């Protein structure tokens, strides 16, 4: 059997699958996934914005949508903001979602997806890249796309350091619950520090009074483990909830400073591409995958596979980033450094803004001394909202309101 390919992709999550989908059919492509079935098991709250889906999938009928919500609730201590966000948010069935893309990869592109195939090593050689499976089999490619998810084991094998700092990690726990108290049309974020230190609690409605109910904390903080914190909150706020499934999860942020090397591109969670504030990573998995595919399609037409040539991938990622992942990460770092008083101020402003109230730039002079200017502080609140809403149009309206 010929084991030479144009592109080898490791990881069959949203990033790896979408990259495969976007590579030109004329190339020979193989994707390795260690689990036996694409789309199982799933560790995710399954929230995504409508805009993102429209951007990456042109079909009008998408068979993996669980529920559409129209209201956003943001909580902080006793404060809460309620915003109408018609037609903006969705909860998907991620298992169906992944199977949907995998189907296209196989049927439309005719590429091979090999499940039950754990890649244990990768090596960049002069004329090719080599990957080695658990059973010892070797495969060769002109280009390697690494999409091995949060665990991100392979980048280090090819000289890209992807070890994640504790401070750049959210440790999470999620339960799928059923409770009549869950409102199908409303998505909830609770940023109260005692509920989820350095993170937030989420209630993402799946329809039929079911929700993906979970929380994430910043992993470097000294506090109770996420599963304990979540159970405490559930007993208080959803005492009658039935738990249908539960599992731990981890989300890494702070995008890699270098996402490529000779013949290699790293995409999705493996590149730490998730949104630093929300930990939402499906959309940036698709985004980075799309760029990697564009670059692969063009690089394969020539003979230059050098790091310099591959760096075009990172340029595209950095140029595009609608909500500048670097700024979001700076914001996250600042929030982590804030005192309780500063947090109160920050979230009060954000919640007022969400509620459509004007905030004055002088609101920031009083207590937030760590910000260099009130202008910057307001920019940060807006960035924060951008993370939650993923909708430029709505943000523009809010900004206009603010500057009045």
């Amino acid at each position: 059997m010929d084991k030479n390919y144009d592109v080898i992709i490791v990881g069959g999550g949203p990033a790896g699958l979408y990259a495969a989908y976007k590579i030109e059919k004329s190339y020979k492509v193989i994707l390795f996934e260690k689990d036996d079935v694409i789309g199982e098991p799933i560790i995710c709250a399954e929230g995504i914005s409508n805009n993102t889906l429209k951007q990456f999938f042109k079909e009008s009928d998408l068979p993996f949508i669980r529920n559409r919500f129209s209201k956003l609730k943001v909580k902080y201590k006793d404060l809460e903001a309620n915003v109408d966000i018609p037609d903006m948010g969705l909860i998907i069935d991620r298992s169906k979602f992944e199977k949907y893309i995998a189907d296209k990869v196989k049927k439309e592109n005719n590429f091979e997806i090999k499940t039950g195939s754990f890649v244990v090593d990768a090596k960049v050689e002069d004329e090719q890249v080599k990957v080695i499976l658990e059973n010892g089999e070797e495969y060769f490619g002109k280009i390697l796309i690494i999409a091995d998810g949060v665990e991100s084991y392979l980048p280090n094998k090819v000289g890209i350091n992807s070890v994640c700092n504790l401070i750049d990690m959210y440790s999470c726990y999620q339960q799928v619950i059923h409770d009549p108290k869950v409102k199908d049309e409303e998505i909830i974020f609770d940023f109260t520090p005692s509920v989820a230190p350095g993170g937030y609690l989420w209630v993402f409605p799946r329809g039929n009074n079911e929700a993906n109910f979970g929380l994430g904390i910043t992993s470097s903080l000294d506090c109770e483990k996420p599963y304990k914190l979540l159970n405490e909150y559930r007993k208080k706020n959803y005492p009658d909830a039935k738990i249908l499934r539960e599992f731990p999860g981890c989300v890494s942020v702070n995008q890699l400073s270098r996402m490529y090397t000779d013949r290699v591109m790293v995409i999705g969670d493996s590149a730490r591409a998730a949104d630093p504030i929300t930990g939402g990573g499906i959309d940036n998995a698709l985004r980075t995958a799309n760029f990697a595919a564009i670059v692969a399609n063009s690089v394969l037409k020539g003979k230059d596979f050098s790091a310099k040539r591959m760096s075009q991938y990172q340029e595209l990622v950095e140029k595009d980033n609608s909500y500048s992942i670097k700024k979001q990460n700076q914001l996250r770092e600042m929030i982590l450094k804030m005192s309780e008083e500063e947090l109160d101020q920050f979230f009060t402003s954000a919640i007022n803004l969400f509620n459509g109230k004007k905030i004055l730039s002088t609101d920031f002079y009083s207590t937030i001394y760590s910000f260099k200017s009130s202008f910057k502080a307001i920019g940060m609140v807006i960035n924060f909202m951008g993370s939650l809403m993923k909708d430029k149009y709505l943000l523009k309206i809010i900004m206009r309101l603010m500057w009045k």
Partner: protein
Amino acid sequence: MEYIKVDKEKCGLCGGCVAVCPAKVIIMYKDRLEIRDGCLKCDKCIKVCPVGALSKNG
């Protein structure tokens, strides 16, 4: 004896410990974790685990 021990009942194979391990000695197969030689005893994996599935041996 290995420095880190895994409670298989608790571990949900989420990959967090693999991500933060600076020595890259934790391998996550589809159905189990394996900890190889070369552990730096930094305790980061214990800290990141959302369910407390990792602990020090002994």
